[in-house]
């Protein structure tokens, strides 16, 4: 065959599986204290053809995110021990939100953190 066969995508995670996932902070970032919160620097990785060109094109090597207030509280709760379900419960209790409201807010925020490379969500709990 001319083309490499596409790797099989992993089976979709069940809803319960998603709630039981254990998000953890990206350990390959640097955190610096700020007068209000912290500044997290994430190194950018360029894949494929961009990888050798990144230096020549002077592409950005890192991105900085300023995290404070409630965002910081949530970020600090993400320790690889608390599941998504527990984070949702924490948010619901803290602000007396409905479960669906808290779930929607927390999942949206985790997706933002994930997209920015601040956290990772392994599909299975890491071995103790």
């Amino acid at each position, binding site marked *: 065959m001319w083309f490499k066969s596409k790797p099989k995508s992993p089976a979709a995670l069940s809803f319960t599986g998603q709630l039981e996932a254990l998000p953890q902070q990206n350990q390959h970032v640097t955190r610096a204290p700020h007068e209000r919160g912290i500044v997290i620097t994430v190194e950018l990785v360029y894949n494929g053809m961009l990888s050798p060109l990144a230096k020549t094109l002077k592409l950005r090597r890192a991105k900085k995110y300023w995290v404070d207030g409630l965002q910081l509280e949530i970020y600090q709760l993400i320790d690889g021990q608390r599941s998504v379900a527990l984070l949702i419960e924490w948010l619901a209790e803290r*602000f007396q*939100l409905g*479960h669906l*409201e808290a779930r929607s807010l927390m999942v949206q925020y985790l997706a933002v953190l994930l997209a920015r490379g601040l956290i990772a969500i392994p599909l299975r709990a890491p071995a103790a």
Partner: protein
Amino acid sequence: MAGTEASQSTTRLAWRWFAASIPKTWEIAAYHLDDHDGQLQLHDRDGLQAQLIWKTVKRAPDLRRLMDDIHRRARETAKLPPQPLTFSTIGVCAVGHGEPGEAAYASAFLPTAKLLLQWYCPRFEPAEFTEVWEPVLRSFALAEGESREWALFNARITLPARFVFTEVLPQPANIRMDFSDPKRVQLRVRRFGMASVLLGSDDEAAFLDRLLRGEHAAIDARESATINGRAGARVRFRRRGTRALDQLTGRWWPGEALLWHDRDTQRLHTIEQWGPRRALRLDLDALARQSHVV
């Protein structure tokens, strides 16, 4: 009811045609708010708990026969032999249930609007039904008369029947319901969660000012006030007319907004009213008193 155990464990659910008290853990997960063919799906963390469907029909239906038909079809789909439902009446509803573990149904008919309303309980368990569903069905009332209660997503208001619902915008911890009357008076009800985060270092008046300015309102005056015995704010504002000639000429419509901060539930409630200069307005303070629930 305020402060009693019952009010702490229930919240209101009300729409043009009905009103009921439901467990606080039931939240609207899906909705279709058509006057003549609508539904609400109520979930808790374990999934679907209840479904309420309303539909205009040509004539008064035989409620028990209707429920029996639905039940028979459900059993046919599950390849089970037909078995009649057990019927009873709770409040305004005819109630039918099958064996434990099967679905239960409750139906009511509103003759003035020729509206059939049907509750669907996905799993009938006798003890749970008595504890959870019976109070819901007892509280279920069909809306008739001069005023209408509207309560969705923990935002609530009681309005004269001339006000019609125009839009709901439900976002997590940020609910907005809009109404208007035939004289083009606009009324907007909001409920925000996470009040401390939203307010930040602002006070209630500054927050309401910021909120209205963000929606193209011109602020004429603002003041801190006590609304419903709680810290709040009162703002007078103007918005461009949005209907008929007023829209064409860009005439300003005067309005007033109230906000109160419920620290117990960490919520901010607002009511805004604006419209053509000569149109009859509602008393916002009285509305705020009626609307403070949930």
